[in-house]
């Protein structure tokens, strides 16, 4: 029931919000906040409980089902979580609530906005808990619809283009997934869509078939991650989306790609993985360097953060390529969580600035530190976290990824990837310098006000978590260690 409630409470919330008259803004806002807080606390409780009671074994916890849903198609309603999904559930719950609070400033078509947002939350939760392929696919796709509208209605100047681009790209990826799902389904004996069973059987598939399915899954998940040549939807979508949606995009949606790789395609097709891991690593390294270099050339604050996501998710791909190392995989999970927190916060903060200044161009600012000390401090904190400063979560994850993959992958390749650390520092500091340091333009920006309490409340939990994970990451690592051990035994078949 616990996991179902994660999905259905936001859905109920959506219906409730739709029933509220459309000019009662504050009622709508608070209702949706409450309906997103329930799953948030549920996900907190699940994390807590999982840590103490289930983290010792790799088995699925809180399993629901499999209940028959569409017997003719062998589709079941089957939910469960393990050490890989629990942290992401936590992240989803937290970021959803934060985003909803952060979108209190929306005052155009408020009702629809929050209804779509709750639908989005439900589908994201669904992706992370479903263990049936059909169910997984359904949630994966449902999410596109609210996202399309959220970008398309409330987005920036090129919103329509960004929205449709996002929609088409992801749908394009999904069709590959659909084909692979069906191929896997029909080659399994007896036919099943149960992900766990399919993982068990997967390694028995012939090599060529594994290759096909693996690549197809890789494309479809890669669009979400996004892997390097398929990333061009990301800057547009991130930049045009309203702040809160950018947060969700960067914080949760990108993680779905890597999560799905960890959950599905990696353990299911070990043979294909063995032959392709080098190329995956190459793609990851390209993404790291490429993303960083491109960020360096950006003039728009949000675009900079967006491209930095490409770079950061590249670390995840490198870690995933080093699949035999538990350290690297743990690092990957850490990176997913920490990137969610950090980039989410950065988008929130960029949004804060945009709300006041109505521009995001880096060049027009300067010396904001003196006028907006608190804001600048917080921004500096997250910039440092993003460039991997020790004591914060980004460092822990990058360090683990590198140290794990160094032993497994080509050492030169990893050393090249390490360059990303310097490049990361360069573009982040360049941004900080141009925006916050230097001379303050009193005439133009004299009217800016510092970050207000609501905005601080939205970023404070993220800051606390970033530092907490950076200072004492052991609990998080323990939470997933058993699952990752199990994962390693699955991929090394």
């Amino acid at each position: 029931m616990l996991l179902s409630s994660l999905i259905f409470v936001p859905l109920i919330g959506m219906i409730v919000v739709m029933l509220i008259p459309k000019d009662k803004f504050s009622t709508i806002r608070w209702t949706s906040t409450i309906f997103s807080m329930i799953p948030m606390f549920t996900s907190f409780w699940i994390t807590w409980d999982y840590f103490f009671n289930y983290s010792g074994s790799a088995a699925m916890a809180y399993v629901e089902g499999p209940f028959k849903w569409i017997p003719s198609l062998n589709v079941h309603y089957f939910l469960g979580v393990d050490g890989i999904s629990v942290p992401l559930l936590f992240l989803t719950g937290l970021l959803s609530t934060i985003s909803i609070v952060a979108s209190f400033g929306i005052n155009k078509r408020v009702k629809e906005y929050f209804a779509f947002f709750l639908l989005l939350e439900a589908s994201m939760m669904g992706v992370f808990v479903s263990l049936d392929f059909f169910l997984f696919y359904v949630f994966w796709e449902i999410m596109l619809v609210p996202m399309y509208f959220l970008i398309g209605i409330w987005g920036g100047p090129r919103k329509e283009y960004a929205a449709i681009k996002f929609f088409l790209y992801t749908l394009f990826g999904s069709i590959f997934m659909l084909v692979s799902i069906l191929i896997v389904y029909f080659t399994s004996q007896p036919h099943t869509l149960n992900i766990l069973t399919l993982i068990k059987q997967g390694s028995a598939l012939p090599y060529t078939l594994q290759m096909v399915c693996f690549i197809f899954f890789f494309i479809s998940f890669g669009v979400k991650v996004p892997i390097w040549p398929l990333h061009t939807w990301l800057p547009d979508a991130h930049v045009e989306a309203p702040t809160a949606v950018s947060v969700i995009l960067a914080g949760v949606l990108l993680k779905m790609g890597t999560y799905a790789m960890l959950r599905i395609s990696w353990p299911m097709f070990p043979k294909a993985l063995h032959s392709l891991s080098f190329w995956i690593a190459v793609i990851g390294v390209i993404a790291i360097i490429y993303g960083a270099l491109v960020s360096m050339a950006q003039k728009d604050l949000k675009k900079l953060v967006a491209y930095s996501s490409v770079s950061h998710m590249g670390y995840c791909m490198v870690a995933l390529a080093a699949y035999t190392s538990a350290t690297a995989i743990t690092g990957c999970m850490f990176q997913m969580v920490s990137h969610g927190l950090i980039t989410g916060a950065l988008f929130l903060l960029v949004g804060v600035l945009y709300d006041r200044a109505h521009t995001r161009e880096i060049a027009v600012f300067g010396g904001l530190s003196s006028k907006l000390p608190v804001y600048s401090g917080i921004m500096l904190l997250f910039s440092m976290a993003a460039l991997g400063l020790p004591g914060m979560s980004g460092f822990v994850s990058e360090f683990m990824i590198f140290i794990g993959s160094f032993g497994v992958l080509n050492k030169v390749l990893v050393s090249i990837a390490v360059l990303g650390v310097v490049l990361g520092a360069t573009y982040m500091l360049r941004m900080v310098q141009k925006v916050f340091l230097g001379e303050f333009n009193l005439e133009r920006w004299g009217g800016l006000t510092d970050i207000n309490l609501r905005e601080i409340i939205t970023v404070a939990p993220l800051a606390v978590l970033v530092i907490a994970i950076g200072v004492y990451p052991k609990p998080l690592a323990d939470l997933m260690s058993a699952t990752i051990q199990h994962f390693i035994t699955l991929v090394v078949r």
Partner: protein
Amino acid sequence: MNFQLPEIHISLMLPELFLFIWALLIITFDVVTKRKNEHTVGYLALLGLLIDGAILSVTGYGSGFGNMFFNDPMALFFKVIFLGSAFMAIASSFGLMHQKIVNHRGEFYALILFSTVGMMFLSSSDELLSLYIGLELTTIPLFVLAAFFKDDRLSVEAGMKYFVIGAFSSALMLYGISFLYGLSGTTDLVQMKINLAITHLTFKDIGVILSLAVLLILGGIGFKLALPPFHQWTPDVYEGAPTPVAAFLSVGSKAAGLVAFAKIFINGLYAFYGAEMAPNDWGRLVGVGAILAMIIGNVVAIRQTNIKRMLGYSSIAQVGYIMIGMVSMNEFGLTSVGFYMFTYMFANMGAFAVVAFFEDKSGSCQISSYRGLSKTSPFLATSLTMFLLSLAGIPPLAGFVAKYAVFAAAINMATSGVAYHWIFWLVGIGLLTSVFALFYYVNPVKQMFFSKEDSPYKISLSAPAFTVVLIGLIGIVLFGLYPDPILQFASQISASFGFLPH
């Protein structure tokens, strides 16, 4: 030559008979009451369809008239679709009665009902002669309906085109049927299958004639289905014909074509499907047709500015998807086709209904005129969005489950042996083009939702209109979340054929 009077079992034909009589009654009623109330006739027609549905539910399976009339699960399933689409078409045509059709209301409804009778008759026939009669009975009223706006050039043009192409293709099909008759010596489909197999074993050289017959029949049915390269009338006729008629054409007529296709090709010519029968294999031809359908339909639809034409092209594309299920002839193929058609009915009828209401109000079918509709008529805009998304195959709407089922059937067949690997091409192109499809499906959505200004039109729905939209919505949502009953029902179709692999 000994004649023997076959058992008639007239009760099996009760729904058809009732509907026929009801249609006649409607014309009479219309004449008698001097057309006082503009909606009475319409409600009567709806009532008739409801009663007919009730009758249908108590009509059992079985055969009568010496196997010429045969009620099987397939017939029953498709009859439900015919009745449903007729119901929705009639309900969405109430707006027309007000301005455009003043003098021929009775005829309008009666013709729709006649056409429905033809479809139902067609779906029950298990024999070429009755099948042909059913097909013509379906088509001829539709010629008239397409040209129903007598003073509207477009409508007349649509009727003319539909008529010429329809008659032409039915002649082609007849020519093909005559060869089949000559080769097998019978018109009974089951008997024909056996005879053909025997002749084929005896005389190896009949292949050319058989191929010719297959091609000609394919041409005839392809016209009904709007399967490329026999599709070109579709957008023109949809654009010119009254919107509810176009809707009815796109669903009812198409479903009729599907039934005929299944009857002739799957029941009758099944033996000639498959790798070992390569020279006479019609599966690949249909496969090529399906590929063309998906490409042409989806690509050309992108550039359309008229929503009816766009939906016309979309229906061409949808046929491509349906045909994927049809050529993957395993136990799941026909099930998926049935289910696809069923969900397609809700989504497409719903979309056309919304288009019709909008046209009644604004007189325009241009996509750009939908700008800002979500602010003035949120319900209608949301409904249209859902219909279009269902057509595009976005979960959790029914269209997605249908697409999934079709592709599942195809991949099942494709993975079953090297000889069927060509089906992968269908799947691949189908999926790729479904991405393109999304682009034009969301085009009206974009207009309705993303624009800043409000729409000048505020559309209030009448009761029947609201019912249609609601039925469509419930259909796509309910059968998207809980498709199992329909799938079970549809799976009886292939079970009733009983000779498919696996």
